[in-house]
């Protein structure tokens, strides 16, 4: 008797969904074991996680925490569809945060922008900042053939450190008792000042972006060009697609969306800029983009799920007195199981006798 892997040619939606469900259950079992090993009741822990996803207040929080990752992941769906391996969503998030904060400071310090235009200007600035930051390595790739993976990755640190510099230096709140933080954003620069909660603005926004992105990829000639380019660059050249132009446009949009994610962090979650404001949202966004199979529609629920894990992590940490590492182990277990599930969606195991 032996086991053999066979590549699946096609997979039905039903089977795909049931494989995912099976591995999520498996993930929960594995995570329970981890919790038991750490000496806490797994039932209690899991019920707390369950509680996060079933209580309206915490679910709303999960949606909000998922938004920065969600926007970044939407951008990555596009980038990865073009075969542009943007590992730099985190840096683009930081640039978005920086640009949004910059607009706020311009208004607060110098009164350069009229009050009702501050938030629209923040949206535009964070999109442009993230987009240009992503287009930079794309330009290098298009012009000089530089592989994008390392530049995008390293630009993350550049962006993070640059924000640090601003916060420790010129952008530090003069009344902040010397803490490295910006001033608290005024109400008109905050997402929660409209409908009472940032998620009420952000989530519909994300849905709209997903719809536009889906339409762009599936229905437009530009999206067609992006998909062909992502599949086979030689075929794209042969088909007469202008590769550089397409890549730059796509990377602008991809990075811009990550920039919007940054806006959500400063304007919707924290309410000011501080160092380390993105604890790796841009990296989790990569996982989200892959799990959703680069489908913008699926990226949204996936980001809510990961947002929920963050919220659950906070809850577990504070109520069960577990170290943060335990929460990370829990999250990693879930990641691993989901990735394993993806594997079994691609291959089937055959028992050969």
């Amino acid at each position: 008797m032996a086991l053999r892997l066979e590549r699946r040619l096609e997979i039905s939606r039903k089977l795909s969904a049931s494989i995912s469900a099976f591995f999520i259950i498996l993930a929960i079992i594995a995570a329970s074991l981890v919790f038991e090993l750490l000496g806490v009741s797994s039932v209690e822990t899991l019920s707390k996680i369950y509680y996060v996803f079933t209580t309206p207040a915490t679910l709303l929080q999960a949606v909000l925490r998922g938004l920065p990752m969600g926007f970044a992941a939407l951008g990555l769906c596009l980038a990865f569809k073009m075969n542009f391996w943007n590992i730099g969503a985190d840096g683009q998030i930081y640039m978005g945060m920086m640009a949004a904060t910059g607009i706020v400071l311009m208004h607060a310090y110098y009164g350069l922008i009229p009050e009702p235009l501050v938030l629209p200007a923040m949206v535009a600035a964070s999109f442009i900042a993230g987009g240009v930051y992503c287009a930079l390595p794309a330009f290098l790739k298009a012009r000089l053939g530089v592989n994008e993976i390392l530049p995008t990755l390293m630009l993350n640190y550049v962006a993070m450190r640059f924000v640090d510099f601003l916060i420790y230096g010129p952008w530090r709140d003069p009344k902040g008792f010397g803490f490295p933080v910006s001033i608290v954003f005024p109400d008109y620069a905050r997402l929660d000042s409209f409908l009472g909660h940032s998620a009420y603005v952000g989530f519909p926004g994300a849905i709209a972006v997903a719809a536009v992105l889906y339409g762009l990829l599936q229905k437009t000639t530009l999206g067609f060009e992006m998909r062909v380019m992502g599949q086979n660059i030689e075929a794209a050249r042969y088909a007469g697609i202008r590769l550089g132009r397409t890549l730059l446009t796509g990377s602008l949009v991809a990075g811009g969306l990550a920039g919007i994610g940054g806006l959500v962090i400063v304007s919707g979650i924290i309410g000011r800029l501080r160092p380390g404001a993105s604890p790796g949202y841009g990296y989790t966004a990569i996982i989200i983009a892959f799990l959703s199979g680069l489908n913008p529609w699926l990226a949204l629920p996936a980001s809510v799920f990961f947002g929920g894990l963050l919220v659950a992590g906070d809850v577990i940490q504070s109520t069960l007195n577990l170290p943060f590492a335990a929460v990370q182990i829990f999250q990693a277990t879930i990641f691993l199981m989901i990735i394993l599930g993806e594997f079994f969606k691609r291959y089937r195991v055959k028992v050969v006798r």
Partner: protein
Amino acid sequence: MAEDEYLVEMRGIVKRFPNVLANDNANFTLKKGEVHALLGENGAGKTTLMNVLYGLYRPDAGEIKVYGKRVEIRSPRDAIRLGIGMVHQQFKLIPVHTVAENIILGIREAGIILNTGKINQELSRIIESYGWRISPESRVWQLSAGEKQQVELLKALYRKARILILDEPTSVLTPQEATVLFQTLRKMAAEGMGVVLITHKLDEVMAVSDRVTVMRQGRTVATKRTSETNIEELVNLMIGRPLIKIKPTRQIPEENHILEVSNLVVLNDKGLEAVRKVSFKLYRGEILGVAGVSGNGQQELLEAIAGLRKVVSGKVLLDSVDITNRHPSEIIDLGVGFIPAEALRYSAPEMTVAENLILKAYRTKMFSKNILVDFKNVEKTAQELVAKFNIVTPSTRNKAGNLSGGNIQRLVLARELWTLPNLRVLLALYPTRGLDIASTENIHKYLVEKSQQGASVLLVSEELDELMELSDRIMVMYRGEIVGILSRSQYDVETIGLMMTGVKKLEVQA
């Protein structure tokens, strides 16, 4: 009699793949001491049937007997243990290793500590007995395609295989190498082995086989003694009808040219001059054949005209418009189509058949409205083209990567010939390479049809028959230069053959 001893008997083999019945009640026998050709078009199920025998696939029904005993072959290891060897179309060799290392790879009996001396001795003995010139110690990357194939054969011989399967072995060989291979196969048969030759080339069947089994649409339609059949009968069995010969009865092309290439210099991927000061004119409605051993600059020439490769110096004029080094999209829009040799290399495998059909035309008025692709019309056109070009696919939404080689080539042909609005020049680079008779015939038909409608064709091929049948003129290339251009009345295999080696004695001004 020993001669009639069956090495292999396969009865009622059925193998299903999603959407395809690859083998439908197929029967096959192999006798000791024979070369048995397994003939059929692409997708007829030849390779599938032999993969079943080699343990790569498990049949859904049917029985297999080897040496008269019923067996279950679960993996290639089982097959090897039974003395079955298989040489695949793509060689399974590790280039940086030596011949000997490649051969003992995976043989458990070789033990942990290798007795290299003994192995090399044994290999040398086999090599010598077949009159080959490879050495057990040479590295595989140093060998030519024909020699690599000998390594694969050597592998089977060293493992004492009694049954040998070769999948389209001549597709990578020059005619001379093929002749050597056939001698080898005859010798193997004479020594009592059974050899299965999977092929779609009729001349090979006639040249080397003792018996031939013809497959069509997954079924084995007939098994004949080669001496008792003929090409016409085999074609009939293979494609289910006699072959239609194309006899282009064409008027002389108008004397004004559509494409003018002058003093063109193009580099290959290694940065060396692949096309050296090439000049020629392509007339309206003409098929200009380009003969030459492949690798003499034909590919680079066509790519440069299509804008896919940079022109170092020289000019390409399309209807007096300078298209030298213009972007491929502009050249496409001006009416230049390009049928590449490897269709899959120039398609988007994960995208649908319909999307691949409009790979070039998506931006034309026909398939787009402002910024949107008009997918309704795309779908409608795709349905028509799939029907017109006989592209075998479950639906137009099937992924192009799931199509068989011949079908992808048909898809490319449909795209180049039918989706572009004003096709004026068609560049065809080995359009029929690796295709079966019916597909080749189809392509020829469409090329002639297009040229009769006024388009000009630059046809690069290695098949002289093809060139002489279709072309109005033949241009011979050697080492990036044009040796000469012959007009129809000057065609002669020997002359062209000589010119292909660079002999300029029959230079003809065009």
